[in-house]
């Protein structure tokens, strides 16, 4: 089982590149049992959306 820290690294990279099949499976398994990382994934996605809607954006 991957660690929470590694899971957050994969979640972050998942916003910047296509994760491999193995990475996706390991991450999914981790997320299945870890509420802290599920929350973090939502927060990372929210961050991206928030920046896109930032009032200074053109």
């Amino acid at each position, binding site marked *: 089982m991957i*660690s*929470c*820290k*590694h899971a*957050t*690294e994969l979640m*972050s*990279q998942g*916003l*910047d*590149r296509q994760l491999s099949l193995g990475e996706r499976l390991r991450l999914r398994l981790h997320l299945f049992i870890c*509420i*802290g*990382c599920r*929350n*973090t994934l*939502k*927060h*990372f996605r*929210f*961050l*991206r959306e*928030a*920046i*896109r*809607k*930032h*009032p*200074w*954006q*053109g």
Partner: protein
Amino acid sequence: MSTLSPEEIQSSLAEIRPRLLGFARLQLRSAAAAEDAVQDALLAAMEGAARFSGASSFQTWVFSILKNKIIDELRRSSRTQTDVDAEVALDEAVSDLFDERDHWSEMPAAWGDPQASLEQKRFWEVMDVCLTNLPASPARVFMMREFLGLETAEICKELTISTSNCWVLLHRARIGLRECLGLRWFGELAK
């Protein structure tokens, strides 16, 4: 189709100038550098304005000029502007979030309805404080990725850093922002 008149160009630029400045200041972290970038963008915009017939497409174009000026400036500043102490502090703060087995010391909590925050002026003030609190290197990479919409490969090339370094910096920036918003806005309890 008629093109924009000099008066229309002027009023159009005056209208977006505050937004251009706010955008530039947040990313360059320097009022002087932001003024310069906006000045350059406005000058370039006036030269090319004759090609536009609508204010909105003109403004979009001015914004894209500014984005390129900001990328130039971020590239320049990356050679001189580093903040080693702040980076070490962020590294340590990130490490402290995890125990010796790299599991959460304290699980991040749910944020309720974060969408509703987007409508609140105070939220954006907190967001800007959190962005400004990031050390220079992760902030620069995060800005290029999320505000300027560059792919990581382009960021690595612009800043001459490795891809893995780019991912490390983005990860720290996101974790740092998550912590900051969690504490300052979404009411997660400080440990």
